[in-house]
């Protein structure tokens, strides 16, 4: 591809680093100079080498101007990253212009920088380069005036670069590195650079964190945050939090949690494929076992899994899971399971991110277990740890990896997760060990289940030699009870139930008796009533008879007087 073709094809040129392209909305501005500034060792050279590699891989020719490192070292670096640097240099597509000053050089009068212009122009013209990197120009003391301005030839060089439409990266130190660096950086940023990137590094807990920030990007938006990045033998890794995720496809496929009861609590079928679940709990509450059980179930259905352990070795994991009926060894043997033990303190946060991202990319793991992510708490500022985990979660979601991460909760007061990443997960399951009557009982809650019905019940579970067993729900009177106390309470309940039944029987009988008594009394009253009625009727009849007898007697007297 020649210069005009590149010019037509795009307004951005890839930086050669996926994450950086995303931050720069496509790459460095094409046909412009970009400035990368930063302290010594902050990664300027590496970043710009990847810009060149990206062009070389696309068939372009490039020129690298070095004022600091020997050309052969720079070519070695490219070889070291796994690209044919030496070959590119030999076939002339990669030209290195060596502008390193000699420490013993002497100035004995007025001079011009014509050779620099001639050499750079010559290299660009001969190779037909589209990309140019100028590394550490500030090392050329002879290119700066005593007044502290770059000499006019540098301005001519930058003008020429812009004029012929090269896409260029100028690397430069910060004012803290040297006076010239400050002058050059300011000058480039003000007059030439369409894009300014600042790199910095800080050491915390004896581990180095590198950060990248886009200070300026002409003609369009760019990410404005500080982006941590890492560098290792394979290059630069940046995983920005990307809005691509908002478009990430939400799967409707479900993956079993490995436990029928838990699947049921989540609406019947388990986790959504590609979802992120957090399992929090105290030490010994069974977090790893839950994670392993899920892993095992997924492996049994032929999926590929990555089990990242931040605390235990491969053999420890196998040994700990075997007695609880989770045999991971066959999956490890056939390659479907990748157990990756790594100490959190072994490398910096960014390197962890990069390592995990690479491992998952290379092996296409569908299932990922991170046990426990709380191991990162001491690795930096809480916000940094959270951001790293956020970006890891983003990455996992983007990859569609169904993930279970565990988290150790030290003090069990409220369901509070210390890293506060549970809000970023789809599912949050909490395990609790509750002591009562001298024994520990394990409980499971679903605190959050985004997009799933999610049972709000608290369930007791046991870890047996056949794995985890989730007990049937027990809804007693008053508060939840578990274990032996649960059994005792059940007996009491049973007793109480019996008593109540008996009482009911009694009351029912009483009711019956009452009815009968009432009826009896009713009969008595009836009888009394009837008796009274008969009494009164006979009394009436007796009086009537007496009246009649009296009348008869009076009539007899009247008749006898006549």
């Amino acid at each position, binding site marked *: 591809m020649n210069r005009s073709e590149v010019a037509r094809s795009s307004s951005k040129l890839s930086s050669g680093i996926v994450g950086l392209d995303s931050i720069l909305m496509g790459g460095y501005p094409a046909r412009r100079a970009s400035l990368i500034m930063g302290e010594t060792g902050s990664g300027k050279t590496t970043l710009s080498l990847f810009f060149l590699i990206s062009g070389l891989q696309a068939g372009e020719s490039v020129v690298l101007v070095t004022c600091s490192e020997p050309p052969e070292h720079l070519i070695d670096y490219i070889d070291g990253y796994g690209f044919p640097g030496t070959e590119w240099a030999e076939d002339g597509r990669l030209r290195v212009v060596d502008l390193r000053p*000699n420490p*013993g050089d002497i*100035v*004995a*009068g007025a*001079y*011009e920088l014509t*050779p620099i212009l001639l050499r750079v122009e*010559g290299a660009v013209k001969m190779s037909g380069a589209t990309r140019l990197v100028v590394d550490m120009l500030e090392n050329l003391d002879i290119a700066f005036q005593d007044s502290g301005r770059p000499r006019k030839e540098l301005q001519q060089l930058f003008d020429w670069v812009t004029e012929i439409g090269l896409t260029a990266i100028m690397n430069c130190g910060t004012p803290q590195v040297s006076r010239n660096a400050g002058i050059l950086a300011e000058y480039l940023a003000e007059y030439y650079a369409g894009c300014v990137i600042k790199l910095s590094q800080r050491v915390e807990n004896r581990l180095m964190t590198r950060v990248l920030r886009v200070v300026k990007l002409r003609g369009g938006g760019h990410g404005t945050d500080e982006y941590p990045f890492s560098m290792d033998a394979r290059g630069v890794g940046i995983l920005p939090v990307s809005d691509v995720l908002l478009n990430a496809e939400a799967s409707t496929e479900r993956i079993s949690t490995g436990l029928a009861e838990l699947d049921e609590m989540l609406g019947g079928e388990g986790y959504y494929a590609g979802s992120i679940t957090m399992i929090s709990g105290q030490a010994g509450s069974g977090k790893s076992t839950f994670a392993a059980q899920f892993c095992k179930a997924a492996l049994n259905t032929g999926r590929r899994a990555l089990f990242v352990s931040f605390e235990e070795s491969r053999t420890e994991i196998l040994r700990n899971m075997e007695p609880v009926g989770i045999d991971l060894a066959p999956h490890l043997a056939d390659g479907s399971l990748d157990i990756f033990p790594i100490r959190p303190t072994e490398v910096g946060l960014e390197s962890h991110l990069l390592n995990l991202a690479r491992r998952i990319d290379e092996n296409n793991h569908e299932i990922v277990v991170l046990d426990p992510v709380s191991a990162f708490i001491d690795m930096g500022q809480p916000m940094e740890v959270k951001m790293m985990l956020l970006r890891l979660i983003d990455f996992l979601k983007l990859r569609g990896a169904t993930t279970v991460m565990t988290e150790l909760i030290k003090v069990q007061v409220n369901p509070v997760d210390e890293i506060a990443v549970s809000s970023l997960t789809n599912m949050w399951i909490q395990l609790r060990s509750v002591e009562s009557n001298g024994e520990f009982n394990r409980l499971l809650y679903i605190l959050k289940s985004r997009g799933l019905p999610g049972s709000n019940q608290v369930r007791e579970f046991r870890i047996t030699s056949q794995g985890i067993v989730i007990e049937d729900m027990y809804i007693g009177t008053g508060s939840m009870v578990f274990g032996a106390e649960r059994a005792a309470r059940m007996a009491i309940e049973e007793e109480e139930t019996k008593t109540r039944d008996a009482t009911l029987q009694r009351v029912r009988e009483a009711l019956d008796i009452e009815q009968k008594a009432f009826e009896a009394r009713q009969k008595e009253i009836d009888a009394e009533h009837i008796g009274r009625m008969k009494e009164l009727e006979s009394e009436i009849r007796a009086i009537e008879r007496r009246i009649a007898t009296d009348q008869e007697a009076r009539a007899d007297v009247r008749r006898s007087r006549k």
Partner: protein
Amino acid sequence: MLTLYVAGRTPLSGRAIGNLGRLFERSDVRSRFDWEVVDILEHPDAAEKARILVTPTLVKATPPPRCLIFGDLSETESLLSGLGIP
């Protein structure tokens, strides 16, 4: 051997050549060095090969150590110390 690299016929080139010529009027200099002039506009490869950064540049290749002296050589003291001449 001294090589003076210049870029075309500029006033600076002229002054450097003049200053170097005057230096070679000294017999102790003449007895120790020869000199030549290379125009990098005509020989760009020579500039690349000798890693020339500025013009004029006087390169002392031998006797070692190799030393580069920048400028029109008007500062005689610097020039002499660069060439190791007391």
